[in-house]
């Protein structure tokens, strides 16, 4: 578990290092995720410590967003002024995005999905 957590931090650390050094526009943890994925592929499996640490963190993923979200209180004035616009944009745009992505992927990936559900039927 401790070993796993250290591995996660190491990946993040090198991710940050690469991002700073090459001046990339995305954050270190995302590059760290790619580093870990490459490491797991090379290793050919997930060490149990890494699995424990990652499952522990991902279980509480939602909690980790709370501190940043409380920052909304700083922008009370702008939210009050543009509240209706913001609410409309958030709801409509999120709905349209879900619709376009879901329908498109469902069509494009139909081949793989059908194959699986068919084999599922045969097995069942």
């Amino acid at each position: 578990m401790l070993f796993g957590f250290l591995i996660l931090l190491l990946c993040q650390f090198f991710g940050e290092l690469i991002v700073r050094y090459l001046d990339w526009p995305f954050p270190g943890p995302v590059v760290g995720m790619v580093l870990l994925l490459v490491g797991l592929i090379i290793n050919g499996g997930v060490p149990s410590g890494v699995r424990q640490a990652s499952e522990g963190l991902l279980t509480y993923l939602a909690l980790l967003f709370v501190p940043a979200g409380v920052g909304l209180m700083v922008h009370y004035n702008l939210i009050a002024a543009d509240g209706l616009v913001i609410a409309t944009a958030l709801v409509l745009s999120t709905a349209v995005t879900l619709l376009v992505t879901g329908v498109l992927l469902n069509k494009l990936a139909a081949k793989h999905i059908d194959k699986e559900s068919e084999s599922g039927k045969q097995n069942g």
Partner: protein
Amino acid sequence: MENKMDDLSTLWVYLSASPIMSIMVTLAAFLVASQINRLAGGSAFLHPVIVAIAIIVAFLTLIDMNYQQYFEGAQFIHFLLGPATVALAVPLYDHLERVKQMFWPLMIACVSGIMTAALSTIVIVVGMGGSRETVLSLTPKSVTSPIAMGIAEKIGGYPSLTAGLVLVTGAIGCVIGPLLFKALKINDHSVQGFTMGLAAHGFGTAQSFAVSSVAGAFAGLAMGLTGMLSAFILPLVVRFLGV
């Protein structure tokens, strides 16, 4: 008596300056919010994160603590977002074969989703006469918050406003997503997960993990991919449209 009051207020000043206060408040608020959500039958309208934020904001206002003081302690929880993002590589590795099979459909769906999210936001906000700062702070709303904050800063929005709006977007996605899948008969967990991760980032990912590990893995993949591609695409879109 007065001495005692003095002692108490010194103690209060000491405690509220130490991180323990913010961490305790954050954990307690999240537990209460989770309980409320459970009582409401798991409705995403009362998403635990949104309810927890509301409780904390109310509490901070009550005890007259500002956000900076709060964050000084809460940053220890916030910090764990980094290793948690790295940890997404594990479910992704577990489902690597599926991802390889569906590589091109996933890439095409991802770019289309990013463009839809950005363009629809810009059109709606500009159309309704929102301010320029609002447009630019809202454009990266479907991107996971650490990346969204970086993008907002780059294109001229308010990073901290973006961080909050990203969370609200996540909660909205958790409400609309499952309804939409039901109405459109989208039953495959990999498609559902990817769609949730793209439109509702970490919230969609957390919710997808509750559905199945396949859904969670694809949501995590969509979140990471959307974040990386958005970091390139959104600044170009904003420049091209001259927002």
